[in-house]
């Protein structure tokens, strides 16, 4: 097992209002480590030296919670397609590499500390319409509402969104359209969700805009970096649904 000596340029920022800067560190890792484990090694070094460890979010470390967010050499979650930072292995790098590690950059995602940003705007977008209203009581039979296989597959592919925000980080406009559209399309593809389609499209898009995210310019950087490879077809669906919702709604505008 070969040791890798790396030079890291990491964004350090003590708090939301503090002035941040890139700081340079050296770390010895090996190719079997995940990117986060490599940062753990660095943090252990820092702790032993009595310095403040680098703050980064992580939870599952298996690519499903969407918290391990960092821009690695200009790419959210790093160079490997369809992979979160926690699932990225150091074999994607080589001995002697210099690596830049920066937080998501978006006005709507203020930095809390170092690489940790506040993604509460995503929660508010979900709360505005990313749900179905169903009565409580005895659960109905699972097969009572038929769903075509292709629709179920599509819905599933959109439901795979882990809400990490890589789409926002990659977009030059810091647009959250891929996130918003994935959440919308997931429900739109299912009969239980379609009932509230119009209200959902209006609420989610307008919440997205109110949070200060940018507009989509159809460059598809989001799709390229999405660790779940969510398709921008969802954005086309939302574009159409929102447009017709505004023009057709009987809600007072």
């Amino acid at each position: 097992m070969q040791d890798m000596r790396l030079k890291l340029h990491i964004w350090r920022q003590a708090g939301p209002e503090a002035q941040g800067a890139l700081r340079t560190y050296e770390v010895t890792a090996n190719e079997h480590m995940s990117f986060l484990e490599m940062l753990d090694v660095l943090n252990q070094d820092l702790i032993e030296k009595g310095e403040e460890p680098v703050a980064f979010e992580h939870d599952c470390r298996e690519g499903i919670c969407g918290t391990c967010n960092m821009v690695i050499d200009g790419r959210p979650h790093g160079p490997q397609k369809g992979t979160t930072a926690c699932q990225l292995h150091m074999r994607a790098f080589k001995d002697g590499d210099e690596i830049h590690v920066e937080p998501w950059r978006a006005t709507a995602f203020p930095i809390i500390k170092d690489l940790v940003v506040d993604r509460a705007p995503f929660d508010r977008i979900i709360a505005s319409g990313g749900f179905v209203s169903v009565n409580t009581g005895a659960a109905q039979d699972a097969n009572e509402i038929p769903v075509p296989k292709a629709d179920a597959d599509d819905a599933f592919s959109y439901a795979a969104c882990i809400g990490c925000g890589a789409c926002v980080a990659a977009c030059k406009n810091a647009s959250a359209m891929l996130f918003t559209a994935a959440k919308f399309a997931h429900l739109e593809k299912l009969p239980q969700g379609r009932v509230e389609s119009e209200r959902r499209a209006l609420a989610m898009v307008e919440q997205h805009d109110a949070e200060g995210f940018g507009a989509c310019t159809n460059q598809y950087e989001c799709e390229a970096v999405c660790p779940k490879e969510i398709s921008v077809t969802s954005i086309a669906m939302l574009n159409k649904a929102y447009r017709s919702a505004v023009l057709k709604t009987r809600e007072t505008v």
Partner: protein
Amino acid sequence: MSRFQRLLASSIGAKVGMAVTGILLSFFVIGHLMGNLLVYQGRQAVNDYAAFLKGLGPWLWVVRAGLLSVFVLHIVLAIQLKRRNRAARTVGYAKDHVNVATVASRYMVLTGMCVLAFVLLHLAHFTLGWIDPATHAVTEKVIQGGVEIERHDVYQMVVAGFRQPVYVVIYVVAMVLLGTHLFHGLQSLFQTLGVRHPGYTPTIVRVCRLVAVALSAGYISIPVGVLLGLTGAEGAS
């Protein structure tokens, strides 16, 4: 707030506005090229067409007013979107990386502004005759219904204009930039309007890009063709 205002105030709706005005402007770009290509048929074809347009009288002004409002709306929405997008990221990355975005898609505002500058210059050049009054002020005498009339010799103006290499260079550069704008814009508007399907989207993208390149090449051929003496047979003058 009317529905229309609500739509245009949103990020998606503003893009819909860009797409719809973009389509209308593109129709103009296509139509204008069709007219311009008459230069290959020579003096009479061009001047007849010019006279026909002038003969539309008030209708010409209706079309011009429509075109102007579409153009202004396209620009106003571009500014609105650009301001939103700029505010959405005020701090950039120390190390940036582009994955799939095309060059054309990254310079829409720049190419758009160049097109605007070109349109103003073009109007001042051939429509108003402010830039090169000598080549603008040419007329020809033709017999119409048995009487001799004098009319604007548009053909002569274009040919004399493009015998001067400086105008050829300006027009060629401007049309490359228009083509670049449309290279992204034409295929992009389908996504904006919600037309996307794994089966036919790749074809839409390819055809749109081909149309953008063809339009650009068509326009470029005119100044270059004049300079090389390839235009209508009567162009020898």
